[in-house]
């Protein structure tokens, strides 16, 4: 096996003391960046990119990709502890992670999140190691119709799984689409719904909305409940890691499925955020106790974290083999490759073997190191919950404001974040689900773009969405998921048959 030999050479490169040191620095910085909402992996790497200009390319990519792994790990921390997603892909982790923290199981949730992140990444790396060229070829089959179909599938898997009344889900989703439409329309090059305001030109950034909708509204709710954290204090115990690990093998099928969803979404390239949502949706659908999701089930943490990390890792594959970034962070790394004098794309694997295999080896090692670093820190993270609410709430507010500002260096976004906080609070009180809104906001404009590109290509015929087996297959899966509640309802009504609970209506 040629790959194994090359991989060993790669390890030899990574094991140089200077590279190991850079790896540790990268992971630590990454976790920090992941914890701060708004300061995403993409921003963090962009800021540090010029520092790497004088380094050899292998060392530079090791450090920057380790920042990325660190950010992927770190994003889960604030999601679980405070219901504030540190990164877009950890929104789905809040659904069950935060309720677990409220029940005093913060350490369990963190351990599960970190471990499943690692598993997802590991599956993706193994895939990159052995079947990269095949997968790269497959990604080429994705044009606008296929891309839209994947988006459609994400939305469909979500509508079916929502817990509240279906109409409220649709309302929240439509609000998300509306917000996503503000700003530049990439297909016509026109500004939409900016009402002549300079600040609105940017549109509503997903991260600003999420920080407000989740973080600020959560603080408002906590204040209403009397200035303290809901639920028990976390019992900190170093053995908790081992206890959680003992239960994890039970969820092997969930983890494998989530990894595959993640890899698929990372390569296509839809990215880590839709992957985490979709994996959560599917986990809920497949579970016998779908109704108890959202109330603190460990599966609800494992599914999105595994998928997000698998997607985040495999998003590097189209970047390396095709020169197309699978995520915003990959886009920045791509710029980095060019700066270091490397040309991303099909020739990279042929001409820069040291670099490519050094990077792949650093993915293995970086994730192991990352896992150890974050697991060791679990008790400390969980201990944050012991700080009195009146102190921590102020700190969270400041961090949120910094995060919202960092997204695009705009003061207006801080106001916007506060507004979204109030909107989020009102929606929570009225029992509207926030997740569909967020999903539509993050995927809305890309889905619209893909839809309109498809129609441009087909000269206006909708047949383009069923023009080959790949796109038809994905669309059919989407429709099946969308109509699943109706199908189970009809089946349940058939005489002589009863299907257990219309849990996912």
């Amino acid at each position, binding site marked *: 096996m040629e790959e194994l030999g090359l991989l060993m050479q790669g390890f030899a490169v990574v094991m140089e003391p200077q590279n190991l040191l850079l790896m540790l620095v990268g992971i630590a910085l990454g976790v920090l960046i992941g914890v701060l909402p708004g300061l995403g992996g993409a921003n963090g790497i962009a800021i540090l990119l010029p520092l790497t200009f004088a380094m050899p390319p292998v060392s530079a990519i090791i450090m920057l990709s380790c920042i990325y792994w660190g950010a992927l790990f770190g994003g889960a921390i604030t999601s679980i502890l405070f219901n504030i997603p540190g990164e877009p892909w950890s929104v789905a982790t809040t659904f069950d992670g935060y309720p677990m923290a409220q029940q005093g199981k913060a350490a369990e949730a963190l351990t599960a999140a970190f471990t499943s992140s690692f598993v997802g990444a590991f599956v993706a790396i193994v895939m990159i190691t052995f079947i990269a060229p095949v997968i790269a070829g497959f990604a080429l089959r994705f044009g606008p119709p296929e891309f839209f179909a994947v988006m459609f599938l994400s939305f469909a898997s979500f509508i079916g799984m929502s817990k509240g009344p279906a109409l409220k889900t649709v309302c929240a989703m439509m609000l998300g689409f509306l917000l996503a439409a503000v*700003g530049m329309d990439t297909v016509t090059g026109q500004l939409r719904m900016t009402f002549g305001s300079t600040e609105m030109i*940017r549109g509503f950034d997903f991260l600003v909305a999420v920080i407000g909708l989740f973080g600020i509204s959560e603080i408002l709710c906590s204040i209403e409940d009397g200035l303290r954290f809901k639920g028990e204090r976390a019992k900190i115990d170093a053995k908790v890691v081992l206890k959680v690990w003992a239960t994890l093998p039970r969820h092997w099928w969930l983890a494998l499925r989530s990894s595959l969803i993640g890899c698929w979404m990372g390569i296509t390239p839809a990215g880590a955020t839709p992957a985490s949502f979709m994996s959560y949706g599917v986990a809920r659908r497949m579970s016998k106790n779908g109704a108890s999701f959202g109330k603190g089930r460990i599966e609800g943490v494992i599914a999105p974290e595994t998928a997000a990390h698998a997607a985040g890792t495999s998003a590097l594959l189209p970047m390396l083999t095709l020169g197309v*970034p699978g995520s915003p962070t990959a886009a920045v790394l791509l710029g980095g490759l060019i*700066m270091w004098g490397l*040309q991303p794309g099909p020739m990279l694997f042929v001409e820069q073997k040291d670099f490519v295999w050094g990077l792949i080896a650093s993915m293995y090692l970086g994730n192991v190191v990352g896992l150890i670093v974050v697991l060791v820190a679990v008790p400390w993270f969980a201990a944050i919950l012991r700080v009195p609410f009146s102190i921590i709430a102020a700190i969270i507010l400041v961090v949120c404001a910094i995060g919202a500002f960092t997204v695009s260096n705009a003061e207006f976004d801080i106001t916007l974040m506060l507004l979204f906080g109030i909107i989020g609070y009102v929606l929570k009180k009225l029992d509207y689900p926030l997740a569909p809104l967020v999903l539509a906001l993050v995927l809305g404009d890309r889905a619209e773009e893909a839809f309109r590109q498809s129609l441009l290509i087909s000269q206006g015929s909708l047949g383009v969405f069923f023009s080959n087996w790949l796109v038809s297959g994905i669309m059919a899966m989407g429709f099946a998921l969308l109509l699943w509640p109706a199908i189970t309802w009809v089946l349940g009504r058939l005489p002589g048959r009863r299907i257990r609970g219309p849990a996912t209506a």
Partner: protein
Amino acid sequence: MPPAGCSRRSLLIGAGAAALASPAIAQKGWEPTRPVQFIVPAGTGGGADQMARVIQGIVSKHKLMRQPMVVVNKAGGAGAEGFLEAKGARGNPHMIVITLSNLFTTPMATGVPFSWQDLTPVAMLALDEFVLWVNAESPWKTAAEFVEAAKRERLKLGGTGSKQEDQIIAVAIGKATGAQLTYVPYRGGGEVAVQLVGKHVEATVNNPIEAVTHWRSGALRPLCVFDSQRLSGTEKMTETMAWSDIPTAKEAGLDVEYLMLRGIFMPAGVQPAQVAFYENLLEKVRETPDWRELMQQGAFNTTSMTGDAFRAWLTKEEARHRTLMQEAGFLA
């Protein structure tokens, strides 16, 4: 930010530093006293962003400036956000902007109120080339064959953004030859190149740097370059071809020419000494081997200009863009 007062104070500090420090600094007269904000009116990872970050890297690696340079992306509204910020920072000498063709196209297409005259031109760094690419498995070996095919049946041409440089070229090809091209807008150049490799579109007008790797792997074929002279790189990029072997559009019988500005601007109302500092700085950047490597990799047209020549060029280009945009029906 206090514009006028600040710049005067900066001047005083600059003069003080000049009196104390080495002769090299005395020549400059003024130098930044705060970190310099480097605005990129485009997203992270694109051509303008890469160039800005390379400049930032070169400046810090070769210690060309005492203060740090901070790259800030302001991509909203096809770059309008970044340009409006620079327009609003009148007199601030601690801000520079890198521009691409959206300096001309964005105000014309969206009606957002600004033009290059709201800024102070510092230097043209280079011009970016455009090449007509088709899939290597397609039957078209020359631009003329491609145009003939597009006259017979409608072909799809993919490009970056809407009502910007790529679409202007697509419309210009159609006007010049009667070829029927459906323009499909995508978000970034790398994505466009891959869509062509995957045969989702029939042609693209990618910049050299966006498509070079696919050319070298044998997936794409260049037909012509939209410049009046051939590209300068004579090193073989594939087994048979170098950049210089690609015919110009005119040689290929296609009367379309388009180059994209990669230039640096400052806000309006800054002092001549401040402009001179950045002119000097960019001159030093251009002399580094790192910069030359980037130019070579991306097969850039390395024409550079400053001062009045640059202003004259900008005036001419703005008028040309207005005509092109008007002919295409893109004016807001």
